[in-house]
């Protein structure tokens, strides 16, 4: 493995300062993405700023009803947290559907937000890949694109699906990402954080140079709602989603009074389907209405050579998930 320098940060300000001081430095949290990709030589840091012990490990309910999650809270801790399990069931389910016991024990909230795509051409280090080697092309468009490639939000430059389950639940819930940089702190709306590939697929998120995620703050839960995460994949555990759906629904007198729908495995970023939500709100809570909303969610989907099945599969995921939470 490529050599790099190391520094252990004691607090967020020191982490940012160390990062700013070294060209080619990266933040190291759980390491489950970073060290994997360094071993593959896909990421080539000159230095790592170890942030995994920063005192950003708390889950707090704020006076306004929001819940603030420290960047270093592990996926396991977050998934089993009582507040998350009782008020944000969809998030707990999404977390527990991802990766494995050991990986969730290491992986952090911020690291999950920052995880990289699973496209084999990105990871192999040699194929054309505009994310890894800007301008080299996209081998996936005419290559193996069945499993971890998107049908929504793609471009001619990149079709890799965003791999996170956690982020899909957060997209449905609504959240804010707090970051700290050399010029202080700022907030980024969760849905604005991940960027569509467009013509710049190597630019994956809204972080500015040296900025560090310190917290993710969840919006207050929807009143009188139920929520669930449904993940569909080739094997029963430990695999990335072919298609997944996070839904949060409130039903009043048989009609949908409020709804949130987000999708994973089918889109290049955690995908909030606001038009599908609008199509569902006010409708009777039944399968026909869910089918219509699912149709709306996949309007504009672009299938590639091997992943056209994701359009009906993604629609079925939404319908089944809505059926489950309204049953």
């Amino acid at each position: 493995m490529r050599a790099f320098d190391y520094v252990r940060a004691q607090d967020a300000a020191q982490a940012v300062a160390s990062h700013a001081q070294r060209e080619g430095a990266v933040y190291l949290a759980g390491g489950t993405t970073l060290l994997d990709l360094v071993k593959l030589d896909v990421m080539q840091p000159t230095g790592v700023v170890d942030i995994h012990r920063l005192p950003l490990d708390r889950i707090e309910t704020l006076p306004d009803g929001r819940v603030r999650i420290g960047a270093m809270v592990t996926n396991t801790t977050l998934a089993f947290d009582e507040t998350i399990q009782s008020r944000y069931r969809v998030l707990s389910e999404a977390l527990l559907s991802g990766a494995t016991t050991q990986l969730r024990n290491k992986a952090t909230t911020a690291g999950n937000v920052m995880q990289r795509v699973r496209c084999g051409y990105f990871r192999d280090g040699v194929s054309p890949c505009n994310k890894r080697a800007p301008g080299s092309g996209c081998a996936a468009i005419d290559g193996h694109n069945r499993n971890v490639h998107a049908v929504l939000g793609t471009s001619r430059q990149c079709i890799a699906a965003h791999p996170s389950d956690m982020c899909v639940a957060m997209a449905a819930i609504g959240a804010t990402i707090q970051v700290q940089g050399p010029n202080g702190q700022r907030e980024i709306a969760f849905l604005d954080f991940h960027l569509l590939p467009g013509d710049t697929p190597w630019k994956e998120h809204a972080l500015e140079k040296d900025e560090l995620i310190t917290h993710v703050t969840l919006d207050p839960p929807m009143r009188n709602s139920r929520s669930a995460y449904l993940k569909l994949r080739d094997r029963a555990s430990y695999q990335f989603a072919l298609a997944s759906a996070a839904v949060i629904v409130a039903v009043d007198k048989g009609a949908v009074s409020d709804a949130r729908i987000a999708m994973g495995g089918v889109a290049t970023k955690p995908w909030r389907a606001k038009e599908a939500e609008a199509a569902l709100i006010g409708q009777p809570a039944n399968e026909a209405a869910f089918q219509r909303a699912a149709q709306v969610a996949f309007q504009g989907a672009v299938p590639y050579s091997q992943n056209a099945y994701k359009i009906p599969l993604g629609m079925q995921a939404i319908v089944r998930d809505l059926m489950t939470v309204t049953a």
Partner: protein
Amino acid sequence: MAKFEDDKPTINRMDPVAPKPARRRFLQSISASGIAATTGAWAGAAAAQADAREGSQQGKAGPQPAAGVMTVEFVVNGARRKLDVAPNAILLDVLRDQLGLTGTKKGCDHGQCGACTLHVNGTPINSCLSLALMHDGDEITTVEGLATGGKLHPLQEAFWDHDAYQCGYCTAGQLMSGVAVLKDKRIAADDHAVREAMSGNICRCGAYENILAAMQSTRARTKRSA
């Protein structure tokens, strides 16, 4: 294949003529802000070279690690260990190669198979995806530390009784995950939940049914004796 025409990518390009960041100035700045210079300072091969270029002397008493090497101290199976490691040294490799604890196996080396699972402060992790330096002050338990006083851990005995292996390469990782899963009250006791919680440990020989049987028999035995 579409190619970019005018907007040239700029990310990940390092300008070779850009001035190197001045480490010494950085150290001075954090010292001035009240943070000890021994924390928050870059260390490693490149940092050591920078020190040499600047004629830097750390001036500390006692032996210092060689250039490009850092010291880490942790407890492994109850024994305190102090080691010099490279910044990019992986915990799994340090345990196997520097401490000779070869019970922990290297399978995929990418967090996909679970063969390298061990406990850090009681929590199972993939040791192939951890830098040794991340574990300063941690308590690490490997498969060599499961047996106590010459007596096998109940799950080790159960693996024996239920023939929960064939080639044995994944067994250390299965045991370390299994012990942690049985202890974790947040994980349900039914077969489905145990299979799900153990899904990070791949067995090429397909001993899954026997591993599950060994775990559930250990659970029943522990319950009876409790």
